[in-house]
């Protein structure tokens, strides 16, 4: 039998644990945006060494599962003498992983701009810096917002993986809860509800941005 009281009671600790889910996803995407911008710039740079590096970065991070990246990162650092808290390791790994996808999102958005956009600026005598900051980036960033929200939704879900390095986010908290209450069904459905609520909010935000940018 489904126990409503157990179901409702499990929300308390799970919502409390959701702060880690949100922190890791949001800090992760923040870091991913910064690194992703650098990787994208490297990918588009005139220097072949930088382009190669960026291409390897992207294909490596997209080719290895996040779970494995987490374990590698978490267990390698102590070996080379770096002692970081699990939370930091998790954020950094999630951020680095996201950077691969984000750099590709941005590269795609930049490539989708018609060449005439920058040519018109070049023709009136604008320099590369103004062309990037005034013409290309504002359009590319706006265009990429829906895809970035989508990436954030993926990260919220993927953040359940950081439970393997011992962070008490929603998934790990629900496992603990299920073990003490012997009521896995109610607890995991509650966890599902919380994930769903977070991601529905993000999806609405994404839809709004998409709507607003479709000039």
């Amino acid at each position: 039998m489904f126990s409503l009281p157990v179901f409702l009671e499990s929300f308390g600790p799970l919502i409390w644990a959701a702060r880690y889910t949100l922190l890791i996803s949001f800090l992760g995407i923040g870091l991913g945006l910064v690194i992703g911008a650098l990787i994208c710039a490297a990918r588009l740079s005139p220097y072949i060494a930088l382009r190669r590096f960026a291409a390897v970065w992207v294909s490596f991070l997209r080719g290895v599962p996040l779970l494995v990246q987490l374990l590698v990162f978490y267990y390698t650092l102590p070996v080379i003498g770096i002692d970081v808290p699990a939370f930091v390791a998790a954020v950094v790994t999630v951020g680095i992983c996201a950077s691969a996808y984000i750099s590709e999102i941005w590269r795609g958005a930049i490539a989708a701009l018609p060449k005439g956009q920058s040519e018109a600026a070049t023709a009136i005598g604008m320099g590369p810096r103004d062309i990037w900051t005034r013409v290309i980036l504002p359009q590319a960033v706006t265009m990429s917002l829906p895809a970035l929200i989508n990436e954030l939704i993926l990260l919220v879900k993927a953040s359940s993986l950081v439970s393997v390095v011992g962070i008490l986010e929603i998934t790990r908290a629900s496992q603990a809860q299920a073990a003490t209450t012997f009521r896995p069904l109610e607890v995991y459905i509650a966890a599902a509800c919380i994930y769903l609520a977070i991601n529905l909010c993000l999806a609405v935000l994404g839809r709004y941005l998409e709507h607003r940018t479709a000039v």
Partner: protein
Amino acid sequence: MQASSVEIRKVNKFYGPFHALKDVDLNILPGKVTCLIGPSGSGKSTLLRCVNFLEEYDSGEVRIDGQLIGYDAPGKKMSGRKLREMRRSIGMVFQQFNLWPHMTALENVAEGLIRVRGLPKAEAQERASAALTKVGLADKMQNHPSRLSGGQQQRVAIARAIAMEPRLMLFDEPTSALDPELVGEVLNVMKTLASEGMTMVVVTHEMGFAAHVADQVAFMEKGELVGCDTPSRILHQPDDPRIQSFLRTYHERNSF
């Protein structure tokens, strides 16, 4: 406003092995209108784009008021700064308008004045609004390009170019992307510019415009400049069979 002259001497351009411009020679006199006509793929856009060095020519010379554009000396590229300096006085209008969709009409026109000419924002907007008024868009200044018709967008693009006070204007098929009923409003703006003594180079399929507004018409085919003469000599009594055949096709397509 002083008008510029352009001298094109033995210009060659290759795309890989493809010879896109073959020893092209053309003289463009200050204050005159030159129309470039010819079949599609003949190199008209390529030649036009060599004039402001949007396309790099491989050999020969393009001189604006005597000054070589793109190179300091043959084979030695000009610095980006110097090139931008030269481009400031050359306006260009594209077939696809190429307005910036995230800016209003006014911002599109003011942008170059602010970033390139370094004018304060208020003065730039004043000049931008004067340029838009000149092309008949005083009431559309706050519209984004997506809220304008093709003809209006192209007029904004012309305003964006003339606000920079160029001495030479390049047009690459400015009416080819427009619905037929919107062609006239753009051609009228161009006629006004021509009557004010602007040097203009216009790639076009509008033979009426070439016949009535151009001072000279140049015909290109397969990367070669086949002939350049007065509109009546090229359009009505061409002696080159390639021009005759092009005009025959043109008349056939436009008669019904």
